[in-house]
């Protein structure tokens, strides 16, 4: 077995590390749930159950209701119970394998439907105007997000929707307007859902355009175009490829055309990501203590007790021994960084069906990873310079506390807090990563932050390496 793998196994499988990892993973789940509450995001904004459809009001005073129920991945949900309430009665039905339901009720200007599946509930008005207020989850206009509308000048058709906060492509018209003949939503992972009450040829184009450009052929560049032939009350569930540069989407049909801004990230993503990093901050406050302890247990203590001597009598140089141990602990820190980012994402999937991209997880993991590697490197440096394991442990902890508390205080007092946070403290690259993932403007010099972050890891590591090679073990 390669010694580095064995050292990694021994460092990773330590009871203390495993317990803390389990705690942090569980904490990650808990915090993910709390993110939704902290941010006050209503369940209807993310609940994994969506409803849309049409009410067609006949001149004879009957409402024919045709709807679809699908999840946040844009997949139909069969077996959903639909309870339609109207003046003087309630009518029930369930959805088909395509997520379809339809029924007819007597006309009532307060008709509404309650959609229930696996403990989830959504309410939706069937007739437009004010939404019926019934007990259960929030019913409101959050459902309008992610819908593309094509208006038609008839007034006996009502489009009704109540869906989660995915791509905000709305804005063309009021979804409760009685003029929309088509429902289009782009759900998680670019899963497209379309539903119409009459035959339509629809072209969906993704554009890269300057802001406020609304004409397809003016200054926008068409990056991808999809054409659909839609049949009445026949839902389309498909996955589309959205070019990463696309910032506008154009809808063109034989009835209507128009453009709307397109965001690469679902609205839900934007809403939760800020809370996500706030929650992550709690991990970052505690996890460095774990790597400082790891460096103590795997390097400082065996050096102090003399256990490294017997290893050094094997075919290995001092430099290799140092790097082998450091690498093993670094792998532990890297895996831990991924785990504490993956666990909240699993929770987001469970809560809202929201899949964050591998790129998000990778970048978000770099934040704890760089911090942990910094304190691992610093503690290894102390262990090389000082033989006492206890002193090394104390110095590692003291350094962390000083850097995390004292330096920002100095920043406040000197008026250079931003400068210090952006470029001086360890893992300052997290500022740029966080801004990028939050979609906010990055006002820092990313190159400098990266350099500072790398130096915090590399400089102590090199000092420790050279000292360990030079000094008697």
């Amino acid at each position, binding site marked *: *077995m390669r010694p580095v793998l*064995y050292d990694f196994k021994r460092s990773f499988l330590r009871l203390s590390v495993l317990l803390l990892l389990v705690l942090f993973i569980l904490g990650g789940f808990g915090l993910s749930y709390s993110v939704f509450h902290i941010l006050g995001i209503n369940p209807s904004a993310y609940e994994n159950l969506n409803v849309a459809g049409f009410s067609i009001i006949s001149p004879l005073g009957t409402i024919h209701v045709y709807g679809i129920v699908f999840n946040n991945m844009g997949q139909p949900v069969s077996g959903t119970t639909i309870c339609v309430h109207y003046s003087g009665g309630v009518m029930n039905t369930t959805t088909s394998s395509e997520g379809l339901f339809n029924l007819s009720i007597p006309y009532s200007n307060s008709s509404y439907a309650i959609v229930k599946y696996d403990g989830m509930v959504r309410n939706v008005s069937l007739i437009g105007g004010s939404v019926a207020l019934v007990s259960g989850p929030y019913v409101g206009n959050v459902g309008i997000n992610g819908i593309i509308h094509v208006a038609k000048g008839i007034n006996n058709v009502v489009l009704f929707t109540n869906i989660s906060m995915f791509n905000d492509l709305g804005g063309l018209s009021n979804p409760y307007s009685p003029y929309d003949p088509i429902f289009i939503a782009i759900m998680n992972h670019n899963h497209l859902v379309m539903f119409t009450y009459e035959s339509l040829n629809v072209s969906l184009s993704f554009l890269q355009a300057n802001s406020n450009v609304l004409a397809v052929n003016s200054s926008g560049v068409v990056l991808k175009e999809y054409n659909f032939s839609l049949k009445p009350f026949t839902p389309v569930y498909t996955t589309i490829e959205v070019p990463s540069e696309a910032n506008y989407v154009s809808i063109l049909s034989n009835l209507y055309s128009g453009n709307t801004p397109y965001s690469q990230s679902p609205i839900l993503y934007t809403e939760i990501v800020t809370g996500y990093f706030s929650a992550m901050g709690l991990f970052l406050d505690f996890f460095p203590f774990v790597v400082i302890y790891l460096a103590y247990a795997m390097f400082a203590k*065996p050096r102090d007790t003399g*256990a490294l001597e*017997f290893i050094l009598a*094997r075919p290995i140089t001092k430099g290799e021994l140092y790097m082998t141990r450091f690498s093993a602990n670094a792998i532990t820190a890297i895996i831990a960084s991924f785990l504490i980012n993956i666990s909240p994402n699993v929770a987001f999937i469970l809560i809202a069906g929201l899949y964050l991209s591998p790129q998000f997880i990778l970048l978000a993991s770099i934040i704890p990873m760089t911090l942990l590697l910094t304190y691992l490197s610093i503690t290894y440096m102390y262990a090389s310079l000082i033989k006492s394991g206890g002193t090394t442990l104390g110095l590692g902890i003291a350094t962390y506390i000083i850097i995390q508390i004292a330096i920002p205080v100095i920043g406040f007092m000197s008026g250079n807090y931003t400068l210090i946070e952006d470029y001086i403290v360890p893992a300052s690259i997290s500022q740029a990563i966080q801004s990028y993932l939050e979609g906010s403007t990055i006002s820092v010099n990313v190159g400098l932050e990266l350099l500072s972050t790398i130096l915090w890891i590399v400089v102590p590591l090199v000092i420790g390496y050279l000292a360990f090679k030079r000094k008697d073990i």
Partner: protein
Amino acid sequence: MIVVEGITKYFGSRKALDNVSFEVKDGEIVGFVGLNGAGKTTAIRTIVGVLKPNSGDALIDGKSIVKEKKEASKNVGWVPELPIFEMDARALDYFVYLAGYYGISKDEALKLGKQLFEEVGLSGRERDKLKTYSQGMKKRFALAVSLISNPKNFLFDEVFNGLDPQGIQFFRDLALKMKKEGRAILFSSHILTEVEAIVDKVVFIHQGKILKVMSMNEIRNLIKSNDVKVVLNQVNENVVQIAQAFGKPELSGNTLLIHDFNGDMSVLVSKLTPYGVLEISRLGGNLEEVFFKVIRGEL
């Protein structure tokens, strides 16, 4: 073969080793004797590459421990006086880990580990944590690890310290077996009577300096008495018969006295091994006398 070439080692401003030079040839057991703090352990730690000398070098089968550490380390085994490991590890796991430094795969190491644990008398204790091992077991474990690469050179540092008679006998027999196999063995000890029985040559070290290197024949010539005392674990008539080939035996209880000893003590020990040699020494003048004469500069 181990060649120590002018090693000088400082700890701060204190000179622990001063231009130490000697050699251990293949098929030879060399006693490395000196008082506590004389520099024996420092010299051995330097020879195995744990300490870096300020000057000088040690050549293990021609490979420099300073410049070719990895190659040299493959050819030398080391059993420290007080072996220190990462005590929370399980013995066989730690063996597999250390075998990794020799480029041995996990499966091979497990197989080799079981074989060597049996050879060194640790069979059945493979899954135990090292912290549960006694001092003697730790030394046996260090030996098993040292045998991973089947090196031709061995360094035993005060290996008899803290061992029971069985442990002492095990390491003494092992050294003799290794000598027969043509290995070079450096055997440090301050229990001079123990070394005397098995070594071919003695390196005297005092205050970090090599005072004298003498063969056992030279030492024997200096020792006036030629009677040998052997304390055995068990005796029968064969013991006397064996001893007759070395002089005039006289058995008293478990103690065998051989008057007018004429032969090689290591051969005698080897022949008496089945009876458990608990102690063997020359009566009258012995290595200890020679040692103090060397220290006093009388030799």
